[in-house]
């Protein structure tokens, strides 16, 4: 067990160390500006990334609340089970996210895709639809970034080919973003306009 512990932590640490601070800054600026302009943010993913998507939507929505401040308009596309099962059953799993976006997304909104491979068909279809709607695409990816990395406006590719490490790193990024937002909101105190 000790070997597993050490081995995993070593790989996790190595993968986290490759995350570019500049790209994380660009990503957080994009999210912050979207927050200021009252835009909607959508988060999505499959499997472990689905839980990260729900987690991120909850964290950024709730853990950034400040008195008299505008609240973050963020939701995940992984939480409406009737909608998801109906879409998957009737229209195909590849349309799971794009169909939800067709109800909701507007020009300038932000789509955050969380995907280890960056190649899931339903993720790529969501990105393509959102791009066509003039939305901004943000990626939390792994492996080499896959096809998704070419289609994102800002992407953080966790340099690993281990799904566990990649998914952990994405959740850590979520917590870094929440902490950053909380600090920036306290500092800048944007009023609710």
């Amino acid at each position, binding site marked *: 067990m000790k070997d597993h512990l050490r081995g995993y932590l070593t790989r996790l640490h190595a993968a986290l160390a490759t995350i570019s601070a500049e790209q994380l800054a660009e990503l957080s600026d994009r999210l912050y500006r979207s927050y200021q302009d009252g835009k909607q943010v959508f988060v999505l993913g499959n499997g472990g990334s689905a839980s990260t998507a729900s987690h991120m939507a909850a964290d950024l929505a709730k853990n950034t609340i400040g008195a008299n401040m505008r609240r973050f308009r963020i939701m995940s596309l992984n939480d409406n089970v009737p909608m998801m099962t109906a879409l998957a059953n009737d229209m195909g799993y590849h349309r799971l996210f794009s169909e939800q976006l067709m109800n909701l997304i507007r*020009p300038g909104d932000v789509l955050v895709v969380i995907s280890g491979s960056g190649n899931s068909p339903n993720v790529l279809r969501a990105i393509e639809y959102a791009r066509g709607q003039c939305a*901004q695409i943000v990626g939390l990816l792994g492996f080499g970034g896959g096809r998704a990395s070419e289609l994102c406006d800002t992407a953080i590719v966790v340099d690993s080919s281990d799904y566990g490490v990649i998914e952990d790193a994405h959740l850590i990024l979520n917590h870094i973003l929440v902490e950053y937002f909380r600090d920036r909101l306290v500092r800048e105190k944007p009023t609710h306009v």
Partner: protein
Amino acid sequence: MSFAGGGTDLPAFAEQHGGAVVSTTIDKWIRVVVSHRFEGDVRVGYSETEIVSDANHVRHELVREAMRRAGIPRGVDVLTLADVPSRGTGLGSSSAVTVGLLNALYAFQGIAKPAMTLADEACQIEIEVLGKPIGRQDQYASAVGGCNLIEFLPGRGGVKVSPLLTPPGTIERLHAHLLLFYTGQPRGSDEILRAQGDAVSAGDAAERMIQMRDLAYELRDRLQTGDVESVGEILRRGWELKRSAAGVAGNDAIESAIAAAHDAGAVGGKLLGAGGGGFLLLFAPPDAQVRVRDALDELREIPFRFAFQGTSILLLEQA
């Protein structure tokens, strides 16, 4: 169209002493079209046409930065149409382009931003992101619109726009005294503004700039009592101060045109904007204007009216 105080809106001066200008918007419009683009990439149309994959690759720097600021990465046609050349005129047209782009790109997303916010974001793009050595009066003037005293409060005190409250008929009489000519010469405002900015930081021109700022308040006070006749004299004094503060403002051809206009009965005249070329504004009593036009026969006269509306959305199609 700036009457007095131009240059005191430069951050180097305003942050220390506070700046003030009196200006009006006129009916020379910049129109911006933002339209959903089927191809999904970006097309930008101005004197050139660019078709590029996304906003980051747009060469037109104002369009590129406005798209980035507004959060539209791609999927649009962006066209700009201008009644006057969009740079080098002294009419603040490049700032009007920036304000108009932001307003149109936000409206495309269903976001209505207050004029003051649009002006503030335009200043950030032009001054902070693109590093232009310009002031902030044009962004606020074109965003808010009308005939205003615009004050740049010292430190980080912000900007205050106050419409001139004039007796009935004053603005019409002022308009009847003004003539606008195009000198046709490129302005090269960046060098003049840099020189002006350097001079301010060096301190040698600060005293003249303070006088220029105070002329804006004097002009405001005169117009608010309906005294149009003093405006020509204020324009003349402002132009003399600007020439000495910036070292250079006009050139021989422009100076001789202004001298010829004075000989023909004009009371005051100045180049609009930083100086160096572009549009020449003259104040002449109506009965002297025929002679002034004759004296400036070789220059193209540009008829204009005051416009009282700032940036606005002309057409918005709901998706």
